[in-house]
């Protein structure tokens, strides 16, 4: 359960404050499939970073499963990022020097999972995203769509309840994009909370709920279908 209450985020550019989020209140229940739309600069990424505990709000409160996030220690935040949330970025953010397998293993390393268990879990996840035969390839040897699938497998490593994706198909051709979206739908069907930022109306159409951001404000929150 994600609960945002009048959450705001203000960046300082020198002396000029930039309001990236302005009093956003929203609740997202476990198992929902949500898309976030809005023009560039409307605060979509900022919202995702806050939900994903990569950043903390400047105002308002954020409760994750009833727990207030603002007061948490760095180690607690690390644990939430590690176990509760899987984050997928527009630009993949894989470790360039590591193989697909090692990339997927990374969150499990930080969970202190044992080597063999880790490896078999990583292989299983790569199989799930259709890359069972690419385990020892480095990101530079993979296509954009394949990279994003590796990133998704990494996001799933510690069985998080929540999958956050910030324009996951933004750098992909439409075919690869569709494959990724199919995977998100499967995850939703498997009971995970999935939140996707997108510019793509057809992707938004797949989701059950659409949030519209404009100028840092939540301007609409509508169910789909």
């Amino acid at each position: 359960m994600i609960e945002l209450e009048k959450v705001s985020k203000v960046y300082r550019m020198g002396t000029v404050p930039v309001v990236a989020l302005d009093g956003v209140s929203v609740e997202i229940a476990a198992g929902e499939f949500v898309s976030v739309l809005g023009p560039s600069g409307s605060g979509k990424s900022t919202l995702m970073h806050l939900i994903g505990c990569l950043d903390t709000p400047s105002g308002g409160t954020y409760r994750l499963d009833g727990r207030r996030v603002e007061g948490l220690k760095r180690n607690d935040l690390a644990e939430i990022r590690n176990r509760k949330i899987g984050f997928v970025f527009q630009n993949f953010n894989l470790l360039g020097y590591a193989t697909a397998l090692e990339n997927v293993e990374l969150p499990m390393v930080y969970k202190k999972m044992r080597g063999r268990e880790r490896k078999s879990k990583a292989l299983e996840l790569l199989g799930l995203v259709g890359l069972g035969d690419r385990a020892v390839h480095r990101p530079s040897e993979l296509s954009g769509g394949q990279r994003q699938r590796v990133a998704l497998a990494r996001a799933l490593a510690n069985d998080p309840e929540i999958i956050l994706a910030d324009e996951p198909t933004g750098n992909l051709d439409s075919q690869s994009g569709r494959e990724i979206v199919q995977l998100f739908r499967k995850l939703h069907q498997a009971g995970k909370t999935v939140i996707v930022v997108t510019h793509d109306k057809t992707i938004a159409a797949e989701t059950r709920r659409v949030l519209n951001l404009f100028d840092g404000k939540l301007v609409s929150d509508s169910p789909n279908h």
Partner: protein
Amino acid sequence: MHLIIQFFRELSKEKMRMFLTVSAIAWGAANVVLLLSVGEGLGRQMRRGFHGMGENIMIAFPGQTTKPYAGFGAGRSIRVREDDLPLLERRVPEIAQYSAEWIRDVDLKVGEKIQREDALGVYPVYGELRNILPESGGRFIDKLDMDRRRRVIVLGNELRDDLFGAGAEAVGRTIMVNNIPFTVVGVMQKKMQTSCYSGHDKDDSFIPSTTFQTMFSPEYVRNVVFRPRSVAEAPAAKEGFYRVMASRYRFHPEDKETFWVWDTIEMGAIAGKVFIGIELFLGVIGALTLLVGGIGVANIMYVIVKERTREIGIKIAVGARPSVIIVQFVLESLLTVAIGGALGIGLALSLVKGINLIPISHEAMEFLTRPVFSSLLALVCISLLGVIGLLSGVFPARRASTVDPVEALRYE
């Protein structure tokens, strides 16, 4: 494992910088090792030379009173009669051994060769006190020589070289001392002697004090050499010496000008302190060079942190705790320092070995060319390297652990 692979990846990416950093550490470590081992070697040679005159002994020379006492005015010369010396043994339990000592210039003649050198009249125990050990086949003066006033003589090794030829067999041969025939019974082993009060032992000759009496009939003892029972009892022995002499020759026991006592134990302690100072100084110089290397490591670690900001951001984003990031970077800098340190220590050790192989005859050089590397020095070097590695890693690592993942991942 992961870490080590990453380290070598870094190594290949930052070849030049890594090379320079590792060299700087190697240079620093080599400096520490070399300076400390040369220092240690210097110290050992110094102590050896210092002990050449005898270990834990005191040498007392009669002087003058400075205080009026028992009806005598100040400025009276103290003269010691040999007959009074047994009092030392009887009344001062802290004195273990003593020998009186007299000295005369004599003509030494072997065949046609004549040389004027010091002859010392001493007791048998003098050899042990003053570290005059016979070469094999010879001996020092003994009790029988004393009792029978034998005309026997022990030669310093260089005096023997001068009179009989370098290294020649002298024991059993006859030598004329002021035209009186003496038999050589021993030659002193070559030794290192850096302090002395009547010439170096290698140029002197030694005869029984009884024989010396017969030849020269000196009225007073020139000086007394004695050894306390233990180092701890040295002050008591010295006090006892003054006490006995004061009561015998009637001077104020606190009047320290009556005897000048050369206390090698006290001097040794002072020399030891000076020496620790020298070694510390050398060590600090070495450590400073090492520090420069450490700053290099810290610098390169900062660069690496900056270049890997994105990677750090990724790790934090998938749940790496700050401590994990810190450990990674500290280990990397420790590894850098370990490699540099190993190279430097290896290099320095082979240099130390090499220097020790150079044959040295010159005495002054002997002090600098016998470096010693001990396990204690190894420990010092390794802990120094460890501290430097930690320090140079900790600050960049802390910087790494506070990377803002959002900021780090914003740009491609």
